[in-house]
């Protein structure tokens, strides 16, 4: 099973980039995603982090977490889910160590999605609100759990406690209930087993800047540009985000993985 990947990144309305994303193939090649790199691989690990904690801290935390995560995945072997978990712990530990040495950066942290792709499909660990989507047969599913307050607000709205508009515009939607800050994250999302992938499946991993798009808009964009390959899809999604013209548009990083035809 071959995977074709591509990514792009935008600062949105911010003066700095706090997202980081990178990919490491089983062969040991590390690809910093986000500057338009694209390629193919049969087995690789993808990491994406969305930093927080101010200008310096956020970018540092996300880069540190991604790098540590991929390095840990590269140097470990054995049970995949145990490796994913261990890499997460190490990435979090790297942030803790850095903050211990630089107390001024206390409070820096990031979300992290680490996803391993291979013949088994995809398996991931996720902390925070960077969405991992699967598009298959005209449907879209969010694979990882959203650790922001948004689902809680939507639940309140569904229960009729607050209006949908209130839920939608609540400034706390983007508050995180769980993140990598050096201490143990409160919530970690992981599947019980790898999710099997099928040819032509499209996986979209992004930072929450993509939240300017509704889920059905993401689906429509992916479907409309499916023929253009991962780079075409990623760029189309980014254009759609830019097209929204949000005044406070957050950093957005989008990585698209398209599953190729089964190996014959």
């Amino acid at each position, binding site marked *: 099973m071959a995977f074709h990947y591509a990514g792009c990144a935008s600062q949105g309305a911010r003066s700095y980039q706090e997202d980081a994303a990178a990919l490491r193939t089983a062969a040991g090649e590390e690809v910093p995603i986000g500057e338009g790199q694209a390629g193919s691989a049969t087995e690789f690990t993808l990491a994406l982090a969305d930093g*927080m904690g101010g200008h310096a801290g956020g970018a540092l935390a996300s880069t540190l977490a991604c790098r540590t995560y991929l390095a840990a995945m590269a140097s470990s072997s054995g049970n995949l889910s145990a490796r994913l978990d261990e890499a997460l712990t190490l990435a979090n530990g790297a942030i803790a160590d850095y903050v211990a040495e630089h107390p001024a950066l206390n409070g820096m942290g990031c979300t992290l999605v680490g996803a391993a792709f291979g013949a088994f499909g995809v398996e991931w660990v996720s902390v925070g609100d960077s969405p991992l989507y699967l598009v298959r*047969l*005209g449907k879209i599913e969010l694979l990882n759990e959203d650790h922001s307050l948004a689902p809680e607000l939507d639940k309140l709205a569904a229960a009729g406690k607050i209006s949908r508009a209130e839920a939608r515009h609540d*400034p706390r939607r983007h508050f995180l209930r769980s993140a990598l*800050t050096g201490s*143990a994250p*409160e*919530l970690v999302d992981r*599947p019980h087993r790898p*999710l099997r992938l099928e040819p032509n499946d499209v996986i979209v991993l992004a930072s929450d800047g993509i939240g300017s798009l509704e889920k059905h808009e993401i689906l429509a964009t992916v479907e409309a540009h499916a023929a253009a390959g991962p780079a075409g899809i990623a760029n189309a999604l980014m254009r759609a985000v830019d097209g929204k013209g949000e005044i406070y548009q957050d950093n957005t990083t989008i990585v698209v993985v398209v599953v190729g035809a089964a190996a014959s």
Partner: protein
Amino acid sequence: MKDMKRSALETPASTAGASIPNRILGSLRDALNAASRESTGEVSGSRNPEEPSARPGAPAAGASAPAALRLANAPARPPEAPAVAPTQPVSAAEALRLAKTPAPELASDEDKEPTTRVVRAGPALKPAPASAAPEEVGRTQAARGKPKVTRTTFHQDPVVGWIVVVGGPGLGAYRPIYEGNNTLGRGKGQRIPIDFGDESISAEEQAYIRYDSVDRSFLFVPNLAKTNIVSINNKKPTGAVPLNAMDVITVGRTQLAFVPFCGEEFDWSELTDLKE
């Protein structure tokens, strides 16, 4: 245990209209924890195996998807249609359900709570009164009949709201906000001095909080000429933004919650016997 952490996401019964602040205050602690992004507690390995975080928009054509969704969302019931024809790839929703179903037991949660930790309503915070008048020494005079209240001149600039330090140095303290434009900074000469020892706040005019008694609105205006970035909730405004009750302002390493006194309900100008 998952169950200990779970609680119904309740708001006070009187959510209608008037008690909006209660609703906001109820979840303040969680919101603040989230805002300061300090996760405490241990890794919770639990996750919800059966609920996809959101549903696809409309149950359209895809043959097996609606059935799969029903399965995913009603785990207590025995699976009605477990046979997904293996000739076709399973739907995205079904694939997710398979990945998230724990091996030994098929879903047994009585309820499909999507997370292990939820915002819960707590006791409402009350803003501290501006100045608790120290008890007069000597005998208190008894007031008889209808108490006569006179309002002639202001004892001080009238307060229109407060900010309460909810994170960082000075935790628990508050500062009044006055009518008009308020400078916010570390210096003692600021109208809103945040002088609790956080050196990462600019000494002067890190930001402004403005109350306009004509349209009775609060505005927060960051001073873009200053080094450190201020944020509201977790937005980093580059221009004036309206302030709402319990918004959390982060300056330097200090968090301030905003508590309005004046607004739609009240403004000092309503007291007609007041003479400037």
